[in-house]
């Protein structure tokens, strides 16, 4: 390349779906290399879910009675959704850690789709969530989980929960970009997500709760998604909460996707 060629101003590649996908793939690849070199990054989607399945089925299982089903069959949908929810929001912690890294400055100086830093992150976490679901499914079967919903029901259930997890990972992105430190975010996750998973149909039927709490539990998204997943895994049908659960996920995405992008831009442009 001659000096004259060098000096001629270059045009940026036109922002297209192609460059956005390729940039996002580069980010996913980077995250996957991280996981390969530090496998402990997968503990939260491997060991924790196994522990939860065993803990709830073997320890609490004997004390909790649910109508019509064995407790393990009832429980699995709740465990799936709880794990997916935590893994989703946890995206925010991983992003907050990324933001502390000088690498973000490098990305900001490159002619890449800036949002691919975020889509790369959330897509990687979708893969992490898929791994978690697979592990839980297997461990569940080992301790007596017998889903009667068939293959289609199973695929439907996985799709519903992964969509929910993907939506929540954008909540994580927005929080991760808005909150100052990863530690603060951990606190927020604990304070917000824990009550939501327990005040839901995840572990016990909501009818056993006081009226006012059951009213809330029956209407919050964690219950809607759990019931849809439960119905799909056990009966192969979506049940009455299938459509509302999808709508919730889409609504969360519609709000948090742009909010996450905006917060990230704001955070990194300072």
């Amino acid at each position, binding site marked *: *390349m*001659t*000096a*004259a060629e*060098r*000096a*001629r*101003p*270059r*045009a*940026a*590649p036109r*922002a297209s779906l192609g*460059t956005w996908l*390729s*940039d996002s793939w*580069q980010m996913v*690849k*980077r995250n996957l*290399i*991280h996981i390969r*070199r*530090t496998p402990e990054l997968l503990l939260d989607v491997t060991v924790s879910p196994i522990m939860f399945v065993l803990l709830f089925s073997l320890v609490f299982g004997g004390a909790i009675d649910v109508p019509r089903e064995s407790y393990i069959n009832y429980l699995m949908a709740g465990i799936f959704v709880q794990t997916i929810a935590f893994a989703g929001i946890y995206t925010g912690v991983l992003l907050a850690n990324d933001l502390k*890294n*000088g*690498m973000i*400055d*490098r*990305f*900001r*100086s*490159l*002619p*890449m789709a800036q949002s691919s830093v975020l889509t790369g992150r959330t897509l990687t976490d979708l893969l992490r969530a898929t791994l978690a679901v697979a592990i839980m499914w297997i461990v569940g079967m080992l301790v007596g989980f017998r889903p009667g919903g068939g293959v289609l029901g199973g695929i439907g259930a996985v799709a519903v929960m992964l969509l929910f997890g993907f939506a929540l990972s954008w909540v994580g992105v927005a929080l991760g970009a808005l909150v100052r430190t990863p530690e603060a975010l951990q606190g927020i996750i604990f304070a917000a997500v824990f009550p939501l998973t327990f005040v839901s149909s995840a572990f016990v039927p909501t009818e056993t709760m006081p009226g006012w709490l059951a009213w809330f539990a029956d209407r919050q998204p964690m219950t809607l998604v759990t019931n849809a997943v439960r119905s799909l895994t056990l009966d192969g049908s979506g049940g009455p909460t299938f459509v509302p659960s999808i709508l919730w996920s889409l609504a969360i995405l519609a709000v948090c996707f742009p909010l996450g992008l905006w917060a990230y831009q704001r955070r*990194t*442009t*300072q």
Partner: protein
Amino acid sequence: MTEHAAPVIHARGLEKHFGATHALRGIDLDVPEGRILAVLGPNGAGKTTAVRILATLTRADAGEATVAGYDVRRQPEMVRANIGLTGQFAALDELLTGRENLEMIGSLYHLPVQRVRERAAELLARFDLEDAADRAVKTYSGGMRRRLDLGGSLMAEPPILFLDEPTTGLDPRSRLGMWDLIGELVAGGTTLLLTTQYLEEADRLADEIAVMDHGRVIARGTANELKGRIGGERLEVQVTHAEQVQAAHDALGRLAPDVRVDAGARRVSIPVTNTDGILTRAIRELDAAGVSLDDASVHRPTLDDVFLVLTGQPAEPDVDGADARAEQVAV
């Protein structure tokens, strides 16, 4: 700069504040094509902020800037296609290998796959990183990181390069190595804006120097022009006995009118306007006056002296990683 068309890097009245801190109080910068501007200043002068604005990482509160003819605020993606940036702290992925880092950056510049591989291999070889190419960056030394970081900025052979304190924290040998690399780049026609706290670095690498202090450009010019601002060379002698300082003053006063005396250090100096034989003549005069000397030298002003004259403070505070980090936090 009049001999050139529009400068490749152009900034007018850039201002930036962070809370109550004014990082930039209205600076103008111009770098013509293929030239090197060194922005010289101590920690906290605003150098990094200026670079971050020009490289589209930060938005200015006021003022305007174009890079490669594109507005940094309105056309950041166009600017980014034309620049390489090497920041003060290596912007590398610690868990990736050197090669993976370069290849990722090349891919994000949207170079063809084959070109990404070739260029990464080429840079690893040129920057003496071949042996470490497939090791994770976390195992690299400081000098290796800087070289790899610079390599990342060069993946797409950008016509314009920003180097923010490229040698801060490096040992002297690594610093010399970086200087050679930078010298080669510019020989290839790259337009370069570099910031530095090292006067020697600015003097050695730059065509032009802008001296920054407290968010302002307080002086600009070539190294020689800046040195000229505090006067030219001076002949300086150190007398052996303090009581002979006055005699030395009188003797040297016969050669030039502007005699400066530092009685405490027993030093007396005069400007050297005409170098022909002045040292011999001075020594002869001093000897005739019975003054004995410990030292005599023709003292060429350094950029340190420039800084002292311009700001009333020495230019180089304790330069180490901790100070540099403090600036990063403040900025």
